């Protein structure tokens, strides 16, 4: 695919400054690239009154009705969003890998998450944030307020890579805390110690209960084998003591083995109605998003 001039390479995004600005920049490029928006919007409509109960937010008291009836009612609105979404970002140690001269996978994942949050909140969806690495964490509950976007960016900025936790536990927790029919976007390198069995199972469970599950797989060219490094003593950041003396560039089986792993994982995910989207950090973020959205449109 030809890189559009609107698209900014990840290395350049790194110099833009705050993640919010990055997200806006990416979304501008994204909106210029897609054919039409696949994301639905929703109005802020009044639904009904109900009796005031202790603990209700006094901001929603209907004072005019109180004047007429001398009873306290609170106003209830229809949900701002018709979709509850969770961005699940992989912050494990392996996401700290950047390859030669590029941004780290975690940074790239943050760009993707920030851009998606910007898009979805702009469309009225409630977006929450979860991350796993040292431990699975639900960072922000889904909200559709504009001010929530700032909190999302702040939490994304604060993510630090480390740990070896898998995504399965976190996905299961989301299944218990999220309304059915929601959307879960997992941004990860999907490198699991068990070959992705637990991840596939957890994602399948979410999918089975009606959630839309999307797995954005982020990988560097060095990892995929497109720009394999030269000889060295290599180790997995999540298992630093396991050293492998090797020459990836001269290892003819390296890239096929990586590809086979992800092909197997993608097949199993698709079997469970999980959308698998491979993304390379060498690719501009907007370009990756545009390609994905247009692919979804068929």
């Amino acid at each position, binding site marked *: 695919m030809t890189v559009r001039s609107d698209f900014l390479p990840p290395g350049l995004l790194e110099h833009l400054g705050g993640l919010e600005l990055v997200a806006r920049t990416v979304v501008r490029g994204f909106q210029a690239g897609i054919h039409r928006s696949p994301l639905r919007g929703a109005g802020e409509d009044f639904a009904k009154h109900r009796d005031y109960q202790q603990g209700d937010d006094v901001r929603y008291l209907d004072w005019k009705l109180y004047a007429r009836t001398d009873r306290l009612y609170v106003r209830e609105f229809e949900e701002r969003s018709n979709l509850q979404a969770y961005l699940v970002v992989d912050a494990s140690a392996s996401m700290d*890998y950047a390859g030669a001269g590029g941004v780290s996978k975690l940074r790239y994942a943050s760009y993707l998450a920030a851009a998606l949050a910007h898009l979805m909140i702009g469309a009225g969806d409630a977006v929450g944030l979860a991350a796993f690495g040292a431990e699975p964490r639900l960072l922000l509950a889904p909200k559709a307020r504009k001010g929530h976007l700032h909190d999302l960016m702040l939490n994304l900025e604060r993510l630090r890579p480390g740990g070896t936790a898998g995504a399965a536990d976190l996905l299961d927790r989301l299944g218990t805390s999220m309304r059915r029919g929601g959307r879960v976007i997992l941004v990860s390198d999907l490198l699991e110690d068990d070959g992705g069995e637990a991840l596939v199972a957890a994602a399948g469970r979410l999918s089975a209960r009606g959630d839309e599950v999307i797995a954005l797989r982020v990988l560097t060219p060095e990892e995929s084998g497109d720009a394999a490094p030269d000889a060295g003593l*290599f180790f997995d950041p999540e298992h630093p003591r396991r050293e*492998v003396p090797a020459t990836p560039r001269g*290892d003819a089986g*390296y890239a096929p083995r990586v590809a086979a792993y992800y092909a197997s994982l993608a097949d199993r995910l698709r079997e469970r109605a999980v959308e698998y989207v491979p993304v390379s950090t060498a690719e501009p973020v907007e370009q990756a998003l545009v390609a994905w959205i247009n692919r979804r449109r068929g």
Partner: protein
Amino acid sequence: MLTFGSPAFLLAGALAALVPLALHLIRRRPPSRAPLPTARFLSPDPRTSVRVGRPTDLLLLALRMLLLVLAAAAFARPVWRPAARGSATVVLLDRGAAMAGGDAWPHAVAAARQRLLALRGDALGSLVLFDSAATVIPPSRVTPALFDSLAAARPTAGSSRFAAALRAIPAAVGGLREADSLRVALVTRPRWHGWSDGLGPLRHAVWPGAIELVELPDLDAGDGEIVAENVKAKEAIYFADALDRLSYAKPALEATGWRVRLAIPSADAVLDSARLMVVRRAVPAGVAAALTRAATAGATVVVTAPAAASLRGFIPWAGAMRVDSGGGGMWLASGPHVSGTAMRVSGDAARGAAVIASWDDGRPAAAARRLGRGCVVFAATDLDRGEMTLDAEYPRLLDGLAHGCEPSDGPSSIDRDTPLDAGARAVLRGTGPRVVAARTVPGWGGGVPLGRWAMAAALLAALAETFFAYGRRRAV
């Protein structure tokens, strides 16, 4: 051409430069440790469990080897010499008055030209023109036109001093940087007047090899008479009191090269052939005229105090001429000092005469005055009496008085107009090879020393090595 004063350091430097090379080749170390999240998909390669540090360290290796080689080169005292053109010649050309006779000067110029100009007119060395002083003419100015102008000119009136020519040799060879070997030729008519004290050590100091002595054809027939006369001039007549009386002066003069004949003073005894006549006793009338004639013809007449009264108008002495006993020590201007003179005559040098000897108290003891081609000397004491005759300097004193009208330097025992003898020529020629390696010649300015530049380059290499090593460490 690059030459080295201490080439052994080069070998040491080359061996030292092999050390970092060997370390780079031999030293094995673990490969660089790098993270790769997909490391699980790698197939282990045992060959990379150790790594030979070649590719990334080539610059450092080169800098380290360069540093050692440059430092060794600096110690080896490198000298850059322009391409050697073989042998160069320094010609010392005598242009003093001695070269004026006959065809000596044209011959001398031709001899110098033959040695200094190649067939195409290129200069083969430097020319030193000398008389009492020397002028060095560098190769750039040694041209056919120079020799044409020299041949057209005449020698100077100055006396030829070999010392001046020899002292100019270092300056002359200093300009011959392109030569790998040097030779020196002296074109002259070697006469004693060119000689001076200390010439032997000077000759040895300025040139380590032999000097080619280019002797010109001697004087023509006219000059030959002078030479013959000079040879005859070694003859002396000693006018004594009696022929059978013991004379100390006669053997003393003979010790300095004179052939002395004793005679009783008379007009007939005064021979024109004698170069020296020493008058010890009063002479009869008529002898003074004969002595005057002989002196005018070129002889030197030395009159001693006892004869002063009989030759009052002839001797270069004025005053009461009162005789005092005990003369004390007597200094000759040319150097000899004798003590124990028997008597002395008061007075002073006559007008136009030069004081050539003094008493210890500074008063004049002898005077000399030119008369025609010759000389009249008066010694204010009896030269054949007293303890002075036992003094080691006595012969030199007499000889000095016999050359009273000549300059005081140089060998006094030999006539200064006569050719150098074989011994003096041998001193001038010297020993050793006639062609000398240029680098062994004192004062030779050949080559540009590069040692300090090599050391500066070594320091730069050290700085660069430090810089790159630091940068590489930071990168790692």
